[in-house]
């Protein structure tokens, strides 16, 4: 109980906000963060899709090791990793229990492990690619590969508003608590209290939506005065925005290492059976 309480204390709104922002913006000094977005898109196109078509456990394990390595290099926050592991374990655990319940046997474990491995490779590759790109880099990358400017603006604006959203949500949530009434008794396994908090968490979204809609009005006017619409139509603006994107030595090096590593595990898989 004490451990759960200390965890709950750490998991305050403030904490989640900081973790999220750090995930988005805080990792810009790592080697991977310096890569061109296009390099990461290309890299992710393989690591994010290929695992579905690979059935060799050896190759999957090799890829998993590799993406674990790259994930460590991105210095991603522990909260994200924790959520990922929780998700993976929850998913496989649930499948295992369900299959045992409906007459399966322990033989199910091996195929489940393969599935978990595939999911892990894809998830870690996503973390590597997207957590090390700041929203601006991601937006620039998308713009470069031909996605409309509105999309990349939305991404960076979304992140700009994220802390505001969090604070606003926190305020509204606290407003409910400062005037509401929590259950007198916690109930079995804190049942009543948990239900109370879940209700508040959901209810708080409605006032949030309304207040955000109100804020957006000024934002839209401001965008108009800052030439937002004008920019989407002007190719010179796109050129200016993308002037900093360059595929350099590090990019080639990173891709080369990845390719060499993949070739070597593909070749060794012929000699190893497991």
């Amino acid at each position, binding site marked *: 109980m004490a451990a759960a309480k200390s965890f709950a204390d750490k998991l305050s709104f403030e904490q989640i906000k900081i973790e999220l922002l750090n995930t988005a913006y805080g990792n810009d000094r790592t080697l991977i963060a310096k890569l061109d977005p296009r390099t990461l898109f290309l890299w992710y196109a393989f690591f994010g899709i290929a695992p579905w078509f690979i059935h060799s456990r050896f190759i999957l394990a090799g890829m998993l090791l590799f993406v674990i390595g790259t994930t460590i290099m991105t210095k991603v926050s522990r909260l994200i990793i924790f959520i990922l592991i929780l998700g993976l374990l929850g998913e496989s655990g649930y499948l295992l229990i369900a299959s045992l319940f409906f007459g399966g046997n322990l033989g199910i474990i091996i195929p489940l492990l393969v599935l978990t491995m595939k999911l892990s490779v894809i998830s870690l590759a996503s973390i590597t690619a997207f957590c090390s790109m700041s929203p601006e880099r991601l937006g620039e990358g998308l713009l470069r590969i031909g996605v409309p400017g509105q999309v990349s603006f939305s991404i960076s604006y979304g992140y700009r508003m994220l802390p505001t959203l969090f604070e606003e949500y926190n305020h509204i949530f606290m407003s409910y608590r400062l005037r*509401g009434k929590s259950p007198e008794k916690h109930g079995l396994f804190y049942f009543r209290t948990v239900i109370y908090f879940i209700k508040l968490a959901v209810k708080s979204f409605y006032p949030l939506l309304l207040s955000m809609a109100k804020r957006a009005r000024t934002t839209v006017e*401001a965008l108009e005065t800052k030439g937002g619409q004008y920019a989407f139509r002007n190719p010179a603006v796109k050129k200016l925005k993308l002037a900093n994107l360059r595929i350099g030595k590090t990019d080639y090096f990173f891709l080369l290492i990845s390719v060499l590593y993949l070739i070597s595990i593909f070749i060794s898989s012929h000699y190893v059976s497991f």
Partner: protein
Amino acid sequence: MNELIHVENVTFQYPGAEHPVLNKMNLSVKKGEFLAVIGSNGSGKSTLCKLFNGLIPHFYTGDFEGSVTVSGLNIVENSVADLSCHVGYVFQDFENQLVQARVLEDVSFAPLNFGMEDYLQRGRRALELVGLAHLADEFVWQLSGGQKHLLALAGGLAMNPDIIVIDEPTAQLDPYHAKEIYEVLKKLNEQYGKTIISIEHHTEFIAEYCRTVLLLNKGSVLWKRSTREALSEVELLTELAIYPPQAAQAASRLGADNVPITLNEAIAFFKEKVPCGMPSVPRQKPDRSQEETVIRFDQVGFSYKSMNKKRAQVLKNINLSLNKGEQVAIVGNNGAGKSTLLRLITGVKKPESGSITVRSQSVASCAPEKMADHVAYIYQNPEQMFIDDSVKKDVAFFPRARKIKGYEAKIDEILKQFDLVDLQDKDSRLMSGGQQRRASLAIGAAMNPSVILLDEPTASLDMATRKHLTQFILKLKEQIDLVMIATHDMQLVSEWATRVIVLHHGQIIFDGNKEELFSNPALMDKAGLVPPQIVTLSLALNVEPIDYSVDSFINRFKEARGEWPLQKASQIN
């Protein structure tokens, strides 16, 4: 001709509105003016200013008649984007006009959108002009309110416009930061020849910084005059709920016809006329020893983790005991820890060290829902308190959740008391600032608390609404054991508080009555506090005891002389 803005016979009506918000308006603004736009709520101030960058009629499509030229461009024929190259606009809710994550990105956003290759240099230059250059790589959400306002201004400056429009800077900022922004505007006006148009309620700022004043009433121009002439119209302005500087009010009510409008003028004006040998009324110090303690802070400290994973200390070593019947004002700069101090009492935040007790109950071991039985906290931004879809439901939320018998009658009474009967079925979010503020106080009153905590209750209100609201606050003490207000509003402090606590970087640097505080300029300065004009004036005139309101100031003169020596009044200037 150096006419920059020409408005001729303009009428504008919002779609669905019954009356035009601008009615046959005529106006001319010359290059290099520093113009204040004043007028009561709904007089069309913001609407007028939105003509200058074309948001009206392009963005708000209503019935538009007449012609407007800005920097030689007709606003109907040119787009908002084109006009914005000549007009920088700072909105009242300026936080929502910052659209990028980092400071430099945000300030260079407009030049980038217009495809200017030197967009970063332009951004940097604008940051330098407002004094934010050292924060170029910072995240927008890490900035303080004052810095965000300066950034919004820099965003407008990046296009190097001729005209800067700024919508009620003093409504959202504390006086210290408002002064900072006006100093920047003054520099832009004097050194860079920018034309500044400021919508402003605060006449003391107008007197100090603006050179011309435009008075609007019901969508028409009443007049445009020099600041001196404008602010001398004490009666007319007061009638329109715009309050002239306190010194001007005092002189005018004493019958002078050439009134002083700035502090220095007032000192020169009143100096020779100060009645000597004033009866000094000794103010008795309240005896705190016998009173009942309601809230006690014992060695309280609080910090939070910031983005860069360092802990930021908000409060340290807070020791306080607050007694029944006190009217406590907590003052200090932004970021001094005022709001945190109040929130700790509600149990929403737990102190990191030390303990807080409310009526000998420890706050740390109590959920906020439990504390709410004793303590009501009124947010700085009322909108954050609106969790239901009508005023009445919001006010009734607390007693309804507690199933208090017969609460409906009590709610009706409170709605009446706060003048909300006609608004009770409206969505609180859609009301005006003053109405929202009243609703938030009504919510607090419906909780029937023994302690009420008000966070900046008079912020972002125009002077008329502010005055109205102060009446409600004065009434609160009849029903409530302890009222605490965190505020920048020194006029409120001087008229209301019996005890003032000054916070500075999370520590209490003063705890006493306002008399001691106001007679200590060094301390006021350290905490970034600006006393009300009438107090500064009394101090400068060496009158004893200090006057805290215009009423008491003029009573002093009336009692001493009976009649005001009018002949001396014409000697200034």
